């Protein structure tokens, strides 16, 4: 197969130029300058006017299977990811049953491979049942295919358990992804704590609920000498702690979400539960700090925290509705928006969803070099379009971006050279 005439943007190889790509046996065989002789008899994909990107890696998502198939399942999640140009989905462990043992891990991997769309890489629970007490069987889960462990959804409360977890995970070279939240401080909170939460009569989640745990976990990581990845940071304070830690040489990386880069708590004013997520949307000052954090390479990755919830659940009162929004099909459009509005190099944003997560998780992918896996997303930067519910391939439609107009859309997604999505 030949992908011809496109602009290749690949942060891993510092590449941003026009070239043709030949794909064979699921890998990139050659990258040839424009006009070079191409092998004959091959399928040709004309990428003229399009951007050819490494397939995106979403390092934080919830596919809800097993257990919550009414919200999403691996099939619908895979379809949505493919349509969003995401070729690798890293899915969190808070399923039912929890992915805290090899049997659940194998179920997810087999299911995903039978669907045969995107690469689904499960994350194992740090503790059994995500209860924060006993370590889960990380070693056996690693053999079954997990790529990391995480406490996402139910953060580990005990510092002692966290210390042991980091040491034990490192025994198997498993990256640790931490959701930093002191749940005693966030308590009944449903939005960012501050003047607005007081005015709306909604209980707040203070920034320190996140920041005290970021501090704690960075210190534990330093003491244990183990790298940690802190997921979905939402405040300036968290970023400052991570900046300090990085300067001291502590091995800490972090991600934030597209929604924390484009939305603020002000959106909560109408009590629309599609603005309810955890961590909550914060102040404009925090949003701005996170955008600058991307620009300064302090924020390593961008991950969707794709969290489908059924319409009936999101129709509840703001206090009662579950946290979370979907994000697969808006990831790339939102990166484009950040690129255009904040004048950040697109390739820098792209690194946050390709090269950087690949490196942190030790994955083969996120690059377009000779011999790389042919996970490729072709993006047309031209068209503007408006997101409607009908376009959403997830089972759940809980997106705050419905009705938004975006620039550019995914036209084709390939996993190991196989086309898994083509736009109509």
């Amino acid at each position, binding site marked *: 197969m030949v992908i011809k005439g496109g602009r290749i943007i690949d942060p891993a190889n510092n590449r941003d130029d026009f070239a043709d790509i030949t794909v064979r046996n699921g890998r990139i065989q050659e990258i040839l300058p424009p006009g070079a002789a191409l092998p004959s008899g091959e399928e040709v994909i004309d990428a003229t006017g399009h951007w050819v990107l490494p397939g995106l890696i979403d390092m934080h998502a919830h596919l809800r299977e097993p257990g919550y198939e009414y919200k999403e399942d691996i099939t619908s999640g895979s379809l949505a990811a493919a349509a969003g140009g995401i070729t690798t989905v890293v899915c969190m462990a808070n399923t039912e049953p929890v992915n805290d043992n090899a049997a659940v891990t194998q179920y997810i991997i087999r299911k995903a491979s039978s669907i045969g769309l995107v690469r689904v890489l499960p994350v194992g629970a740090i503790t059994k049942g995500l209860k924060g007490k006993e370590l889960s069987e990380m070693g056996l889960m690693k053999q079954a295919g997990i790529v990391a462990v995480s406490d996402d959804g139910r953060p580990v409360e005990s510092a002692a358990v966290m210390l042991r977890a980091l040491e034990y995970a490192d025994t198997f070279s498993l990256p640790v992804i931490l959701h930093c939240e002191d749940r005693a401080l966030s308590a009944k909170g449903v939005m960012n704590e501050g003047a607005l939460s*007081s*005015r709306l009569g909604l209980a707040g989640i203070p920034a320190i609920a996140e920041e005290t745990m970021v501090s704690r976990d960075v210190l534990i990581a330093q003491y244990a000498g183990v790298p940690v990845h802190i997921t979905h940071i939402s405040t300036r304070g968290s970023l400052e702690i991570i900046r300090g830690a990085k300067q001291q040489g502590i091995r800490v990386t972090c991600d934030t979400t597209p929604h924390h880069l484009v939305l603020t708590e002000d959106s909560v004013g109408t*009590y629309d539960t599609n603005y309810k997520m955890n961590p909550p949307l914060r102040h404009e000052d925090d949003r701005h700090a996170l955008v600058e954090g991307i620009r300064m390479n302090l924020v390593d990755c961008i991950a969707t925290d794709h969290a489908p919830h059924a319409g*009936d659940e999101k129709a509840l*009162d703001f*206090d009662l509705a579950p946290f979370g929004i979907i994000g697969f099909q808006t990831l790339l459009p939102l990166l484009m928006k950040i690129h255009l509005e904040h004048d950040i190099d697109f390739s820098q944003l792209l690194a946050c969803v390709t090269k950087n997560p690949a490196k942190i998780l030790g994955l083969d992918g996120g690059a377009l070099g000779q011999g790389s896996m042919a996970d490729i997303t072709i993006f047309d930067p031209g068209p503007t379009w408006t997101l409607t519910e009908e376009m959403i391939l997830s089972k759940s439609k809980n997106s705050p971006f419905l009705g938004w107009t975006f620039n550019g859309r995914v036209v084709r997604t390939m996993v190991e050279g196989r086309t898994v999505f083509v736009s109509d």
Partner: protein
Amino acid sequence: MNWPHKDIVAIADLSREEIYTILDMSTSFKEISKRDIKKVPTLRGKTVVLLFYEASTRTRLSFELAAKRLSADTTALSASGSSFQKGETIMDAAFNVMAMAPDCIVIRYPYAGLPRKLARELPCSIINAGDGTHEHPTQALLDMYSMREHFGTLEGLQVAIVGDIAHSRVARSNVYGLQKVGAHVTVVAPKTLLPPGVRTWGVDVSCDFDPVIQEADVIMMLRVQRERIDEQCFPDEREYAYFYGLNKRRVDMMKPGAVIMHPGPMNRGVEITHDAADGNRSIILNQVENGVAVRMTLLYLSLGGNVNGD
């Protein structure tokens, strides 16, 4: 002149002029409750549904009497005994009620935001009788009415609101309303019962009750719930009463002519003692009396009545 609002969701939605319109009109409605025959035909043929998903005696009775004295048909539904307990969602319940064509729904609800949503989605009038810790606009209006009745004006009045400001919808609605009509508000509470961002409210904030007492024309005491002890907002009722309770010693410090208010229900011996609640400075029962008049006005205006009653 037509009243521009279909609903009464929040004091934040009302202008200063609209607040004064409500207060002015309430005086004539108050007169009806003093008659031998306490009923006028104004809202004959209108249906008012009272949906109370949270415990209430005063507010519910007040609305019910207000509607009945205007000849509206009323029916009341509470959380217990409704299909809410069977797991029916509030929106399903609301659409079902709407299908029976009420003209007005008065709603009390334990979570913030529902009256706003109902106002947006239902064609009938929605009156917020308290939603979570958001607003309780009719309480603030009857409080302002009672203050104006007593002092003749609201302009420049010094009002101290004391107690669990953080969790009080009464405090929020009163702060917004009193600011609009030109009164000066001081909120008094331990820091644990002050809401985040209270400094942005444009009110004076004090943790020390005594100096505030000596300046205030109105001392509005708020109910403090035992639940706040479990949340470590204060150590126990004894210490709370000592620093923030209105007792004989503090009543004696009040300015001549100053009054005591409380939205009820009172925790006697905690935020207020009998000397304060039952003494001659208390206008607590006037508040209750005025509540009926103010709610008559609000029902009248929301159900299509004209300002000035013509």
